[in-house]
């Protein structure tokens, strides 16, 4: 019976009243690859961050080797022998592989001046690369490496730190299947060396290939844990597809009008391949796909935020140029981003300044007018703000999201692109957002909704297109869209 190296009991974590991890119980055994599978927003990354000491748990216990472990900072985690390989790599571009591997623990040559023993550094690094069977030269500069190779460097670093528990957060995201193979090989080597690996992924085929145990998480709750032997693709899809709020989405069924927007042969290098679709007046078009499917890139390209490499946009039948955000605003396109902290909101500006951020101030008179207009809008949504001159972050997440939506109402937009419209906001605000969508469609606007919450997409969309590896692989109408069907194609089914 192998030893349990990491044990989580009743781990709970919430952000601003929003429970993201709900009584998580998990055991990781020595020499085991334990995969955690779930959609975006299921709580996987937060779980990693709690174990890594980045976020503190609200309650529950972490045990390492049967002893209670208080992990309060990333340093604590490292001292307990935990290494994390994040989705985004943290490497110094201008350093060599060897320098990155031994960043803190480089071998020192004692002499007149204590200096790094470069020969030993490269020798040791090359040793490790060879042992892990990475086909790389330790003297190569990191900026010359692709994403898959960078991840391998990070893994080598974890290996040299004598980490016993290695957590990998989506190690194969944004890289091809062929590039993933060396990573899988390396995971097996680590396993043979007695390391324990927590493998976070939403790529089911990868997980089924390398994991010993599979835990399925959804909306912060663990649904089930299996031995890989006893489960197949279809079973996991079925468990992932249990839907909860099927009938709760209050979306009006309005009459659809003429074609307002269409995309022809859209390509973006490395991200999107020959995308075609048409949007009608009053319609809600859902776009489904896992992280890395190209769904966010599609949203950004439609908004002129990412450069397309080929293809064309048509509005009301006329070809239009959308190459910048200014272009898209001019054509009445609005974008409500996935990550409002980074892309949409100016947290330190006041509520009113945020509302006016889509306006181009020209004349004082103009700006007075739009300020008046902004105030009227705020009154109409009953935003409970004491003072509109307060900074944006004084509002709750739900109210921030409403504000980011309302600011586009002022620009007379006709096409609204939502990227994760209700991610991380409270349920009451969700209901508000859906009803604001109703206000848009009943007055003839058209919506494109990108969401990792398949339940939500089905609840609100008239049509759903599924993206996989940057291409549209399936389209569903209201009658055929089920969580099972959509998940099947999202996870690469044919």
């Amino acid at each position, binding site marked *: 019976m192998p030893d349990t190296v990491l044990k989580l009991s009743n781990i709970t974590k919430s952000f601003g009243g929003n429970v993201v991890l709900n009584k998580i119980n998990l055991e990781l055994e020595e020499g085991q690859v334990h995969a955690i599978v779930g959609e975006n927003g299921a709580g996987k990354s937060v779980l990693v961050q709690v174990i890594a000491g980045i976020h503190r748990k609200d309650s529950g216990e972490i045990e390492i080797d049967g002893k209670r472990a208080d992990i309060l900072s990333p340093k604590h985690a490292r001292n307990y022998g935990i290494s994390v390989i994040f989705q985004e790599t943290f490497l110094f571009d201008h350093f060599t592989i060897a320098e990155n591997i031994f960043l803190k623990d480089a071998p020192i040559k004692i002499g007149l001046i204590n200096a790094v023993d470069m020969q030993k550094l490269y020798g040791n690094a090359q040793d490790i690369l060879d042992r892990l069977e990475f086909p790389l030269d330790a003297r190569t500069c990191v900026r010359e490496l692709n994403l898959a190779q960078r991840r391998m460097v990070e893994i080598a670093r974890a290996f040299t730190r004598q980490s016993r528990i290695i957590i990998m957060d989506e190690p194969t995201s944004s890289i091809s299947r062929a590039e993933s193979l060396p990573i899988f090989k390396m995971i097996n080597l680590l396993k043979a060396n007695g390391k324990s690996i927590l493998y976070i992924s939403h790529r089911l085929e990868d997980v089924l290939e390398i994991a010993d145990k599979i835990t399925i998480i959804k909306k912060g709750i663990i649904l089930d844990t299996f031995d890989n032997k006893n489960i197949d693709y279809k079973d996991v899809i079925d468990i992932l597809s249990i839907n909860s709020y099927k009938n709760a989405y209050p979306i009006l069924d309005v009459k659809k009008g003429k074609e307002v927007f269409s995309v022809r042969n859209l390509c973006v290098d490395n991200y999107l391949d020959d995308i075609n679709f048409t949007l009608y007046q009053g319609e809600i078009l859902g776009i489904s796909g896992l992280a890395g499917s190209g769904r966010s890139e599609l949203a950004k390209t439609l908004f002129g935020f990412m450069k397309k490499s080929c293809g064309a946009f048509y509005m009301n039948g006329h070809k239009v140029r959308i190459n910048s955000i200014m272009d898209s605003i001019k054509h009445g396109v609005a974008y409500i981003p996935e990550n409002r902290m980074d892309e949409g909101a100016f947290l330190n500006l006041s509520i009113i300044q945020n509302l006016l951020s889509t306006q181009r101030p020209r004349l004082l008179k103009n700006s007075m007018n739009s300020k008046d207009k902004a105030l*009227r809008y705020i*009154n109409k949504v009953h935003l409970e703000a004491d003072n509109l001159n307060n900074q944006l972050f004084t509002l709750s997440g739900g109210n921030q999201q409403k504000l980011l939506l309302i600011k586009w109402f002022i620009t007379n937009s006709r096409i609204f692109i939502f990227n994760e419209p209700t991610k991380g906001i409270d349920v009451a605000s969700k209901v508000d957002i859906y009803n604001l969508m109703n206000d848009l469609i009943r007055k003839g606007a058209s919506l494109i909704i990108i969401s990792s919450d398949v339940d939500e997409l089905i609840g609100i969309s008239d049509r759903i297109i599924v993206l996989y590896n940057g291409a549209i692989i399936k389209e569903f109408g209201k009658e055929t869209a089920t969580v099972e069907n959509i998940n099947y194609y999202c996870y690469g089914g044919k």
Partner: protein
Amino acid sequence: MFAAERIRLIKKLLLENKKVDVSELSNLLSVTEVTIRRDLEKLDNENFLIRTHGGAILNEEKLAAENWPYESIKDDFFLEKSIIGKIASLMVRDNDTIILGPGITCLHIAKNISEKKNLRVVTNDINIATELANESPNIKVVLTGGDLDPSTLQLSGTLTESILDGIYVNRSFIEVDGVHMENGYSVESIEKASVIKKIMSKSKESIAVCDYSKFNSTSFYYLCPITTFSKVISNEQVPGNYKQYFFENGIKLFITYDVYEG
């Protein structure tokens, strides 16, 4: 004080006095004259009043032209109800058969369905039947008989119910007078509750309508539990715990945002 409350108070004063004064309102409500002017502008846009130098007067002509029963104009939640009427009308299809239950909110629905084709409406509210007869002659109207309540012009009693017995419809709109987590839905009289229960039993789908002031309150007579209606139409001011409860229990809550101007 929130803008919505302020506007409601201004409306109330207007309906009672037929005119208001900017500086008086500013003193009364402790907000600047600029704010008051903005509120008046809003109500002007809604055709509720006509702005004058230093104040505003009630737009009686407009309100009279729309044939509103006097009591309903005095309603504190006139605007809230009127948008509920618009949203509800989007749930009425061409070729539909519906029942409009008794009440002012249902009257607002009746005012928004004149464009529908081949529609049949059953009602026990004389105000609604009159409105449809005047403004939407293409709609087939069935008025139930029954005992007349002279103050509301609504019909009820065994005769009303026995007529409803023979009728089947696709959907009905039910105006409720109280919505409460524990006490469920309630209405103001036993007679009304009895007719509404009959209406609900004759409809494939029943939709509850009421302005937000009815939430967290209980009226005289119990109608049904809180989970009964699968669709509810009200306003954005509905308390957050109800929004959450409805969503988590698979009930669609439509609220009447009216922000986008296209």
